[in-house]
């Protein structure tokens, strides 16, 4: 049996190129992984983690379950293209086996089986497979139609905006759009000339045979297969350099993630898997407040990852991000967008200066004695009411407290990390860790979510429990150590980014407020909460832009008709205070005002 025709050459070249390019990429990235990561892979390779990864590959790379959850229409589009195409390949494989039995058939023989059937003299039909293949083709074509619609008007697909693409993407995208229509035409022409029973290609073929003159059909027959094969070839060649690399990059990424690899403050080749697993679907664009409120259109995660991938990232794009994590929460691939952005900043800014922070040596301005340490944080010193309320609460429960920074402390280091100066931040981490250890505290309470996050993620504080003050107060109330009077006020709680999406603390503050009054939820809350705009992570937007973000977000909080807006971050508090008409209080103030004295 022959399985070669000149028109298959573009397809064969494309396929060989694709496999070579992708294999080179994966091997290089894996070889360049740091030793720790390689050890992790060896350690976890033959465990149930691998099985879990296989299951996730099916769910995410083929079915796209997470996109379904964010946007069902978009989910259907991705699933019909990915899973539909996958099944076309698999069922196509089985189809050839059904016709020819178990014999070796080269790749192009499977892909262009309909073409090779007549030349090999196969005239009988397997109706089950022909119908099945047509049904699958229809599913994929629906996905393509939806993709066209998305390009024309993204609102049809429930998206305000879709991604702007670069040239390579446009080439690959155009090829992908026309692959399946071309396949439909080629198979229909074949059916018109040689017969076919599929409900789609077969019927279309019969209609063509009746309406179009026979010699015209013969004239277009070979070219139609050339077009189909060329489009496949073009797509495969463009694929490793375009967004469609995500189809292949996501698979090893899922495995590596299950083997416990993750991006760090330093760049490493693992990041390449994450960067190239971005499909540029553009789901991250809509949640970005820089886009929706300020009309900044070129800094969102999708563009950041694109710029980083093609080495055209500039500082302004890397720095123009609030790191609120709203996009990360929505990303269907689960890319660690904030970490990647941070290590991009670090690469550009992290030049340690030896003499830096010498003044920290021997410094200790702390006061008080106690097993519980209170680290107010730099920002909290600008909201003295918070600090004062915490002191009242400590006094009411009779807690002995060691105050780490009442008379001026040292920054936690997170602001430096956010600007990419990770090495400089390490000096602060070392200083504060040493300070906490020296005073033998067992619990560390902080009023600043920014500090909280760095204490939990970057400090080694084994034996010291780190709590946000909302968690601490919640514990005091549930343990019965602190009793509060209920009042008749309605409170809206604003979730600070670093506390909510950053540390996953949503319920403790709500329980505390519920003990005092009624909690009313704003439109966006919890994982979906808006950013106040004052984030330390963004050093590009100016004051008026920060104010605009704060105003929009505060307006949404006030729309609940609350009496008081409550938050638990000094930075958010400052931002809301600038824009709010109603009263704004820190969670500790709400509690301190309502302490019942026994």
């Amino acid at each position, binding site marked *: 049996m022959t399985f070669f025709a000149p028109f298959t050459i573009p397809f064969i070249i494309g396929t060989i190129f694709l496999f070579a390019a992708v294999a080179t990429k994966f091997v290089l990235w894996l070889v360049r992984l740091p030793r720790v990561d390689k050890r992790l892979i060896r350690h976890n390779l033959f465990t149930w983690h691998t099985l879990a990864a296989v299951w996730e590959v099916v769910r995410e790379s083929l079915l796209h379950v997470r996109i379904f959850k964010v946007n069902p229409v978009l989910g259907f589009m991705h699933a019909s293209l990915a899973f539909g195409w996958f099944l076309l390949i698999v069922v196509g494989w089985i189809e050839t086996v059904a016709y020819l039995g178990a014999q070796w058939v080269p790749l192009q023989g499977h892909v262009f089986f309909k073409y090779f059937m007549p030349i090999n003299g196969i005239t009988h039909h397997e109706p089950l497979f022909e119908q099945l293949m047509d049904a699958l083709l229809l599913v994929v074509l629906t996905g393509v139609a939806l993709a066209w619609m998305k390009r024309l008007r993204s609102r049809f697909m429930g998206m305000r905006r879709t991604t702007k693409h670069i040239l390579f993407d446009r080439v690959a995208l155009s090829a992908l759009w026309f692959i399946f229509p071309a396949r439909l035409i080629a198979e229909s022409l074949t059916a018109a000339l040689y017969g076919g029973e599929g409900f789609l290609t077969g019927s279309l073929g019969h209609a063509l045979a009746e309406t179009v003159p026979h010699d015209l059909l013969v004239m277009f027959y070979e070219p139609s297969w050339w077009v189909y094969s060329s489009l496949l070839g073009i797509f495969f060649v463009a694929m490793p350099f375009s967004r469609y690399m995500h189809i292949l990059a996501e698979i090893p990424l899922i495995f590596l993630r299950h083997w416990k690899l993750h991006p760090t403050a330093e760049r490493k080749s693992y990041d390449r898997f994450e960067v190239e697993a971005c499909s540029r679907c553009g789901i991250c664009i809509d949640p970005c407040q820089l886009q929706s409120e300020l009309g900044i259109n070129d800094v969102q995660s999708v563009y950041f990852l694109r710029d980083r991938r093609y080495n055209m990232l500039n500082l302004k794009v890397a720095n123009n991000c609030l790191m609120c994590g709203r996009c990360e929460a929505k990303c269907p691939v689960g890319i660690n967008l904030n970490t990647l952005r941070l290590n991009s900043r670090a690469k550009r800014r992290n030049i340690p200066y030896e003499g*830096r922070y010498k003044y920290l040596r021997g410094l200790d301005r702390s006061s008080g004695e106690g097993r519980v340490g209170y680290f107010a944080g730099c920002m909290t010193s600008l909201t003295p009411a918070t600090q004062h309320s915490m002191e009242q609460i400590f006094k009411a429960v009779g807690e002995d407290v060691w105050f780490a920074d009442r008379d*001026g402390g040292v920054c936690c280091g997170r602001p*430096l990390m956010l600007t990419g100066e990770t090495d400089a931040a390490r000096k602060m981490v070392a200083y504060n860790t040493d300070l906490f250890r020296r005073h033998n505290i067992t619990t560390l309470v902080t009023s600043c979510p920014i500090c909280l996050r760095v204490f939990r993620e970057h400090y080694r504080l084994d034996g010291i429990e780190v709590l946000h003050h909302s968690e601490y107060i919640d514990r005091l109330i549930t343990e019965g150590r602190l009793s509060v009077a209920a009042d008749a006020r309605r409170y809206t709680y604003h979730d600070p980014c670093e506390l909510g999406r950053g540390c996953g603390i949503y319920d403790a503050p709500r329980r505390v407020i519920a003990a005092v009054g009624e909690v009313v939820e704003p439109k966006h809350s919890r994982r979906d909460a808006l950013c106040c705009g004052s984030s330390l992570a963004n*050093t590009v937007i100016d004051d008026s832009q920060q104010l605009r973000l704060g105003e929009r977000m505060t307006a949404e909080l006030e729309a609940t008709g609350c009496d008081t807006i409550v938050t638990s971050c000094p*930075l958010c508090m400052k931002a809301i205070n600038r824009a709010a008409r109603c009263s704004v209080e820190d969670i500790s103030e709400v509690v301190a005002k309502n302490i019942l004295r026994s």
Partner: protein
Amino acid sequence: MRNINFGYGISRPRAIDIDNNDLRKSNAIIAEMPELQACIGCGSCTASCTAGNLTEFNFRRLHTAVRRGEYKGAYEDINKCMLCGKCRLVCPRGINTRALIMLIKRKLGDF
């Protein structure tokens, strides 16, 4: 009176001849962040400064000197800053002080 800490002090009087100073870096800084010219020199940044509370670091003095082309010791001094960002919150002119600090470091330092 002498022992009361107001958070600021009085600088010794001195004469500065701007004509003799090399203003190229200073001009480059102002060109990149024109909002610095809105500074009224109130010193809120210095009064709220975390590093200024622990050392002699004085951000108002520093950026005023840099604008005048007096760069000596400025890079070493600005590295005392911990970038905590309080100065940005208190600035009555809404100057993006953290970006300014990073800019001065970039222009004066070796990177």
